[in-house]
């Protein structure tokens, strides 16, 4: 059993647990569990076949991209193995620590409305991130005290980046 963080090139990151037994991989994420059976190489160069449920899917590799079923292209920047500390549950690792506010999107920090040491109520706006002309306000998920602000106005952030730590 491994814990992986998959970094997509478009900024998303997904934390999954990965368990390989012969040809069968069990992958668990926040969204649920999936059993992927590796069927081997396809009949063309750079084509690999997998069985998920009763469906057979192909992955073709092209210019560093993965093409799913000949139609959907995506790229993985990297896959990191995460250290699992004793006593830590997978669910906990997937969701991030309580009080950590992560960026829900890729963009640029416009304003930070709070400073370290401020007490905030649940739902209070902390900062806003702008992506393509529209501003998204990030609010406090819980009531608490701002322990750390990890970003500055004007800074670019990726999805999943740490913005603020609440205590």
């Amino acid at each position, binding site marked *: 059993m*491994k814990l*992986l963080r*998959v970094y997509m*090139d*478009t900024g*998303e990151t*997904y934390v*999954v647990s*990965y368990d*390989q037994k012969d040809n069968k*991989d069990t*992958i668990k*994420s926040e*969204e*649920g569990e*999936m059993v*992927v059976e*590796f069927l081997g190489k396809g009949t063309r*160069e*750079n084509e*690999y076949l*997998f069985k*998920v449920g009763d469906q057979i*899917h192909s*992955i073709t*590799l*092209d*210019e560093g*991209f*993965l*093409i*799913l079923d*000949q*139609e*959907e*292209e*995506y*790229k*993985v920047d990297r*896959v990191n193995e995460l250290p699992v500390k004793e006593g830590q549950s997978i669910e906990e690792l997937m969701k991030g620590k309580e009080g950590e506010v992560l960026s*829900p*999107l*890729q*963009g*640029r920090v416009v304003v930070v409305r709070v400073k370290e040491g401020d007490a905030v109520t649940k739902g209070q706006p902390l900062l806003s991130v*702008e*992506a*393509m*002309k*529209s501003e*998204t306000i990030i609010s406090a998920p819980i009531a608490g005290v701002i322990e750390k602000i990890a970003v500055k106005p004007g800074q670019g952030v990726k*999805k999943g980046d740490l913005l603020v730590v609440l205590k």
Partner: protein
Amino acid sequence: MPPFGKVLVSNRGEIAVRVMKAIKEMGMKAVAVYSEADKYALHVKYADEAYYIGPSPSIESYLNIQRIVDAAEKAHADAVHPGYGFLSERADFAEAVEKAGMTFIGPSSEVINRVKSKLDGKRVAKEAGTPIAPGSDGPVGSLDEALKLAERIGYPVMVKAAYGGGGIGITRADNADQLMDIWERNKRLAREAFGRPDLYIEKAAVRPRHIETQLIGDKYGSYAVAFERECTIQRRNQKLIEEAPSPALTPEKRQEFIEASVRFGKRIGYFALGTMEFAYSDVTKDLYFLELNKRLQVEHGITELITGIDLVKLQIRLVAGEHLPFTQEELKIRGHAIEFRINAEDPLNNFTGSSGYVTYYKEPNGPNVRLDTGIEKGSWVPPFYDSLVAKLMVYGENRARAIETGRRALRDLKIGGVKTVIPLYKLIMDDEDYQTGNFTTAYIADKSEIFVKKLKEKEMLKTALAASVYNRGLMRGNRTQEEGTARPKSAWKTYGVQAQANARVMW
């Protein structure tokens, strides 16, 4: 003889490229303008000449009238095509171009000034006998007045910003409580977004569809309508998928739309291309005029596909003073066309814009496919402008065939490096309500839960397969073989291989 020698296109992205294609075909020179962010953009490379007009924010470049007119003068352009968005419907821009001794490709500043706001449009429509939604004749002064009016015309009502555009500042209120809730907020938003807080109220259509007509007029009072476009598939009042003709109209209803549009055009002496937007109720069969877009429309291409007219070339000729080359009776609808707006947006994240480099790019082509694009492999999608990067259009002899082609072309179109709405469109093509034409403007909002669920499942599948591919070392798999492919260096070797492979060598 081309009507002009050189035309400057004061826009960017796919529409700049599209307009330049018409300019080049007509034997004229195409001039681009570009901001800092667009230094390496496709429209700049495609033009015959290009001029830098300022920093990336559009207010300093594509919205800067002085700099664009300066560039046009420097280039010795005879005419300026504004595309859509940016300065395309600004009377002051048209006037500045006219004053500089050039032709503005669109209606004159005088005609633009006849319909400045949505409320002007409603007034003209009333005078012309074009049907409008019951509601206020002018801006509604106070909340009390609004409540009284809404009570009289009946809920639900639409609250709109008089100077609004682009689908911003439109809210529906189903009852008095909701109206009270949104009134002050919308007023403030309207002031922030458009500089004028004026709001007005009109009755909302029951199960509304958004249908628009393509109005075409010359300077001598002749009009024709190149039929309608159905633009009902929207999110946040912005169009995503359009089609022509509308699956909801009978020939009689279509005629009603055409006549209502021509009456409006005649009333204000409109010329060149205009789009008459209507709300249409499937239930009551009422049509309500919404507004006139005084420019080339984003979705003009699907009208071109079903009528065979090149609207951009026609627009340029009409503005140059040529007569309308056909009558209404000569126009015929042939087949069905669908347009998909390819936006660099994340459908899983409330359609937030996705900026970045296009690192993978495959265009669809083949029978019945047209792609108007503003990007290529290596392009940067900047965060400063609209997220529309390309328009995919498909054609079929009927709607079902067009959907088939659409599904295929969406699969063939591959854009990597930025998020796009393509995965969502694939789901819509497979949706029965879309296939049967059973939808309203709330289609995306109503189905968002199921679409998001399916998109998330796909993301999970992609992540899981990526985890398998990486953990099994498959990414490294075949690289050696690729590089190891023998490439004959000598032409004699190639000749030898070919000669032996050819059956004729035996004789």
